[in-house]
C-alpha cells in the first residue's frame, strides 16, 4: 500500500478561471517588472550623460539654462507623496479603509499637482522637441517620466475603486503594495532626473 501526498491543508487563495488553487504571485512579478523598467530609464540617463559630456555646444541658442527653483518646489511635492502613500498603506494594514482612501486620494492629488507643474514648465520653454539634441532629450526624459506619473495616478484610482468592493481586501493588498512600490520608483527616478537635468548644468 502506498500513499500519495495531497494538497497542503488549509484554504489557498484561488486565481479564478478554473485553475487549480495557488497563491498569487503578483508582487514577485511586479518587482521583476520594475527592475526591468528601470533599465529603460538608465538607458535614457546614459544617453543624456554621454551626449552632454561629448557635445561641443549643448543648450539651444538663446537658452542660458533651465530655471530650477519652481521645478524644485514640485519635486518636494512629488517626493512627499511617497510619504502619503506609505501612510495610506499603514491605514490599510489597520483596516481603517476611510483613512486609507483619504491618503490615497491625497497622493493622487499631489501627483496631479506635479503633472500640472510639468505642463506649465513645458508651455513656458523657448525650445521644442526637435530643437537639437538637448531639446529632444529634455522632452523625452520628462515626458516618459510624466507618463509614469500619470500611470501611477490611474493605478491608484483603480485601487481606490476596488476598495469599495466588499471583501476585496482579503486578497487585494498585493495590488496596493505593488502600486505603492511603483510610486516610490517614480519618485526615485524623478530625483535622479532632477539632478541630471537641473542640478548638472555646468
Amino acid at each position, binding site marked *: *500500500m502506498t500513499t500519495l501526498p495531497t494538497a497542503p491543508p488549509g484554504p489557498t487563495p484561488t486565481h479564478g*478561471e478554473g485553475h487549480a488553487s495557488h497563491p498569487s504571485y503578483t508582487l514577485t512579478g511586479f518587482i521583476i517588472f520594475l527592475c526591468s523598467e528601470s533599465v529603460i530609464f538608465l538607458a535614457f540617463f546614459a544617453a543624456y550623460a554621454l551626449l552632454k559630456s561629448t557635445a561641443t555646444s549643448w543648450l539651444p541658442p538663446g537658452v542660458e539654462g533651465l530655471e530650477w527653483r519652481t521645478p524644485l518646489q514640485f519635486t518636494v511635492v512629488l517626493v512627499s507623496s511617497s510619504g502619503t502613500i506609505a501612510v495610506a498603506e499603514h491605514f490599510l494594514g489597520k483596516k481603517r479603509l476611510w483613512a486609507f482612501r483619504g491618503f490615497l486620494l491625497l497622493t493622487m492629488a499631489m501627483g496631479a499637482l506635479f503633472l500640472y507643474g510639468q505642463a506649465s514648465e513645458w508651455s513656458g520653454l523657448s525650445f521644442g522637441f526637435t530643437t537639437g539634441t538637448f531639446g529632444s532629450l529634455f522632452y523625452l526624459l520628462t515626458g516618459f517620466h510624466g507618463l509614469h506619473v500619470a500611470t501611477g495616478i490611474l493605478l491608484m484610482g483603480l485601487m481606490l475603486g476596488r476598495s469599495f468592493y466588499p471583501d476585496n481586501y482579503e486578497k487585494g493588498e498585493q495590488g496596493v503594495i505593488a502600486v505603492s512600490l511603483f510610486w516610490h520608483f517614480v519618485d526615485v527616478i524623478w530625483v535622479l532626473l532632477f539632478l541630471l537635468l537641473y542640478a548638472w548644468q555646468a
Partner: protein
Amino acid sequence: MTLTSLDPGILKASHPVPGAPNNWKRFFSFNTDAKVIGIQYIVTSLFFLLVGGLLAMIMRGELITPEADLVDRTVYNALYTMHGTIMLFLFMFPVLNGLNNLLIPCMIGAPDMAFPRLNAAAFWLVPVFGVILMASFLVPGGPAASGWWSYPPVSLQNPLGHLINGEALWITAVALSGVSSIMGAVNFVTTILRMRAPGMTFFRMPIFCWTALSAQTIQLIGLPALTGGAVMLLFDLVAGTSFYRPEGGGDPVLYQHFFWFYSHPAVYVIILPVFGIFSELFPVHARKPLFGYVFVAIASLVIVGLSLVVWVHHMFPSGVPQWMRDLFMVSTMLIAVPTGIKVFAWLGTLWGGKIQLNTPMLFSLGGLFNFVFAGVTGIMLATVPVDIHVNNTYFVVGHFHYVIYGAATMGVYAAIYHWFPKFTGHMYFEGLGKLHFLLTFVGTNLNFFPMHPLGLMGMPRRVSSYDPEFAFWNVIASLGGFLLGVSIIPFLLNLVSSWVWGPKAPANPWKAIGLEWLLPSPPPAENFEDNVPTVISGPYGYGTGKPLVEHQEAYERALQEA
C-alpha cells in the same frame, strides 16, 4: 485525505479551461493554458521560419552567379534585412518561448505559468507584430532595407518622405516584440522562482530551467535598453528629433551601443536554452548522469554576467577608444571559459555512455559539433586585429549562422523530436527524422562553411553582385542553402503525419528521469493538479537507482493503469 492508490482517472482526465474548447479550435483562441500557448508559439514560429527561409533562398539564388541578375539591388537590401529580422524576432525567440511554455511548468511540477492571461497576451502580440512587419512589403518604398541592426543614419533616410514607411513599421514591430518578450520573461522568471514542486531546490532543477532562468534574466535587463533606443530611433525618423542625427548634434554611435547592449546578449538568450536542451538530452540518450551538474548550472549565470559586458566587440571599427577595444576583447574571450566548462561537461557525459543514435540525439550531437566550430571562429572574431580585418565580410555571416542555425536551430529540432511524444501523445517517424537530420547537417555545413574562406578572401556581406573569383564558394553555399530548404520538407511532413497517424506514445518513451515524464502523454491541463510529487533527489540520476520523487512507484503505476 490520503489515497491508498492514486486514482488513474486523475491523471487521465483532461480539465480544459472553462470557456475554451478542448479541441483544435483552442489553438486559435485566447487560451491561457501554457501547453496550448507553447504549441501556438511553435507553430507560429515554424510558419515564419518558412517565410524567412524563402527570403534566404531568393538571396542564395541571387548569389549563385556573380552578377546582380535575379532581383533589384534595393530589393536585395530589403531581403537580408527582413530575413535577419524574421529569423530572430519571429522564429528564434517565439520557438524558444514555445519550448519554455511547454517544458518549464511540467519540469518544475507547476500547474501552469504564474500569470496565464499575461502569457496568452504575450503570445498574441507575436502575430500582431508579425503582420506589421509583413505589411511593410506592401507600403510604398518597400520594407526596411538598412540591415537587421538598422544603424542610423542609413535607417533614417526615408527617401519617399511617407510617415508610414518600411523602417517605421520595422521599429514598431521590434518594439512590440520587446514588449511581448518582457511580458514573457516576467512570467517565466516568476514561475521558476515561485512555483517549483516541494523539495525542488535550485540545485535540483533541471538544467533547462537554469538556462531558461538565465536567458530570461538577460531579456529583462537587455530588452528595455533596445526598446528605449528603438523609441528614440522612431522619433528621429518620424518626428524630426536629433538623438542620432549628427546634423542636430546627435550621435549615431549611441544607437549602436543601445542596439548591441541588447543584441549581443540576445545571442545568449537563444543559445542558453539550447545548452539546456543539450544538457537534458545527452544524459537521457547516453544513459549517464550529467557530468558536473553544479558547474553547468553556475556557468549559465556566469554567462549572463559576462554577456552584459561584451557588446562593444560589435563596434571595434566604429570609432570607439582603444581602451574600450582592449577591455571588451578580454571580456569577450572570457566567455569561452563558462562555455568551455559546459562543452567539457557534455563530453564527460557522453564518455563511456550507452549512446542511442535516435533523431534527438543525432541533432544534439550535430548541434554540439557545429557549436564548437562556431566557438572557435568566435574567439578569432573577438580578437581586435582579426575582427577589423574580417569586419563586415562573410566570415562574420558564416560564424553567426553556425551559431544560430548550426547549433541553436538544430538544438531546437532535437528538443521538438525529444518532447514531441510527450506533448502530442504520438511518436514521430524515426526514418523521416533521420533523413531530416542528414539533410540539415550536410546542408548547414555546405551552406555556411564556404562563407569562412569567402570572408577571409575579402567578400563583403550585404552585396548582390561580387567579383568572379568568389564564384566557386558561393555556388557551393547556394547548393547547401537549397539543400537546407529541402530539409524542411521531411520535418514538416513528420510533424503533421505523426501527430495525425503516429503510433500512440507511452508516458515515458525514452525511460527518462524528470517530472514531465511522470505525467501522461499528453499531460492534462493542470499537470499534477493537487498531486504534485515531492522531489527527493537531483535530476539525471541515470544508472544510480535513486528515485526522483517520493512514492515514485505509485506515480509510475498510476501512469501504466491510465
